């Protein structure tokens, strides 16, 4: 059984078919990339997995669970974490607080024990700190720990978003254009981090990315999409040389 199974999923926005009868599976332990021109429906696939939209048709299963049965807030509980293409951090909170929100799915205390800050609430906070601190060390965010998001440069925000997703201790990490807007050095860092996330942490990665260098550097398999539908699926080299993909990128004229 695959970790994530997308089966014949279709989603329409009014007259526009954003995702068109799409099927693919993501296996445990791999890095799976989705590529395609702008408007191909890549982010929409992520939003479907996050349950922000109900598909018009099709099935989405994760780790044996039917995802279509859960609320958007229930997806994280199964171990799916994500980042957003247009960074969605908690602006008026510190980096540390942002990452701690990532621990929310592990919350064991209730309203009363938290308001009284009982020993169990204290113990939970200590555990949360330890986990979050590991992520901070891993992504080199020590210098920004107590900074407000609102004052951080773009590149740091991107990393904080990855850190927040990792703080949830996910099985599957969805990265929506992790390298867009990053400098060459920052992109290289991101590349090694994604490698480590898979190898050291054993987390499966599904990412949308335009940077073909990054995609072929880290991913095992690539799915190329255009107009919501599958164009090609295979190793990075196979997909890059696939005629339909070349056509979609270079236009019909060629």
């Amino acid at each position, binding site marked *: 059984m695959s970790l994530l199974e997308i089966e014949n999923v279709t989603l329409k926005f009014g007259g526009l078919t954003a995702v068109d009868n799409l099927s693919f599976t993501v296996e445990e332990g791999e890095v799976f990339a989705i590529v395609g021109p702008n408007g191909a429906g890549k*982010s929409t696939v992520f*939003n479907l997995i*996050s349950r*922000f939209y109900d598909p018009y048709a099709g099935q989405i299963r994760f780790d044996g669970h039917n995802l279509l049965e859960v*609320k*958007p*807030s*229930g*997806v*994280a*509980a199964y171990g799916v*974490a*994500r980042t*957003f*293409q*247009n960074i*969605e*951090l*908690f*602006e*008026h*909170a510190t980096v*540390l*607080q942002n990452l*701690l*929100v*990532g*621990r*929310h*799915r592990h*919350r064991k*205390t209730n*309203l009363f024990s*938290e*308001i*009284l*800050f009982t020993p169990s*609430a*204290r113990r*939970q*906070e*200590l555990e*949360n*700190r*330890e986990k979050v*601190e590991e992520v901070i060390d891993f992504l080199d965010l020590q210098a920004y720990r107590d900074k407000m998001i*609102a*004052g951080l440069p773009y590149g740091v925000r991107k990393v904080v978003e990855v850190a*927040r997703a990792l703080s*949830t201790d996910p099985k599957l990490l969805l990265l929506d254009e992790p390298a867009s807007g990053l400098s060459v050095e920052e992109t290289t860092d991101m590349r090694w981090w994604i490698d480590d996330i898979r190898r050291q942490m054993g987390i499966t990665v599904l990412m949308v990315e335009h940077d073909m260098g990054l995609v072929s550097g880290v991913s095992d398999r690539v799915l190329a999409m255009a107009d919501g539908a599958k164009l090609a699926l295979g190793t990075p080299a196979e997909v890059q040389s696939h005629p339909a993909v070349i056509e979609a990128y270079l236009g019909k004229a060629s």
Partner: protein
Amino acid sequence: MRIVFKTDYMQDIRPWKDGYQLSLYLILLAVVFAAPWILDVFYLGELTNVLIWAIAGMGLMVLTGHTGQASLGHAAFLAFGCYSNVILLEAGVPFILAFPLAGVITGIIGALVAIPALRLHGIYLAIFTLAMSILVDDIIVLTEPWSGGVSGKYIAGIDLFGLSIDRWGTPMLFYWLVLAVTVIVALGYINLLRSPLGRSFIAVRDSEVSAQAMGVDIARTKTISFGLSCMVTGWAGAFMGMFAGAFNNETFSVVISIELLMMIVIGGLGSIHGAFFGAIVIGFLPQFLSIAKEYVGALFGGSTVAIPGLEFGIFGMILIAFILFEPMGIYGRWLKIRTFFELFPFYRKDMFKRQKSYLKTERLR
């Protein structure tokens, strides 16, 4: 500049930064506790009033400042708290039970109101809650047998642990009672903010989509926030009733709702400090204005000028000034001044430059 080195996780979890900060707060608490021996009866009453407004401010701050849900209807919850307290007391329930219950009842009403309000955002939520505030007047008139309707209700002193506590008879005791509740609410609020629930409030305020993606149930979180907010507001309402001594359907008008919201904006949204700073402004503005009026009156030949709505108008102008020049409120200004002195002479003018936030439309794509 004081640099705090962090060497263990408890330093992040404790509400104070270091021993220095803790001792400042303890000194403040000691001074406030000793106020009845320092101030005369009039100013003690004013300070009591400020604390009651601060409780109400904390109530609204949870919802608006930390969960991002604007409410223009919180006077309705002041009223619910005030009336439940008095009705329970009249029914013979001792104060030690009646007062907490008044808050709990108001909290439950607030959570119920939250259910239809969940789908509303920003201005629509403000209009919805404003309507509530207007409605409560009618509710009080309609439920005359219990609420006393237009002729209103009175509350004399209450008994607590064998002590008779009365705003006029024993102002010191009433002050300490209000102070105790203020401190308890503030401590609970501090604990909330360093716990998962408080952080989920902030998450909902700043980005609902990513809060959801982190496993935060938006509807549930907003409902809890409404409930907690209204509970605390209910307590403030109960105290307002006891402070005023008499009240009717017009006491908790829409104007109070608006004042409450203005207060936390001026104080500084998203901080407990803001509730207190705002309460100080709201509490002492009438004093300040009457002194100013006398002064202006004397300038123009003796008679005091009486302009209806002057207080409210000036309050509105202060609010507009804050929104334009200091959106972070008094607390934000205080942080800047403090940073200026801590970093002196290295302060840069653009240190607190406002960041343009992204337009929140189309952000899922």
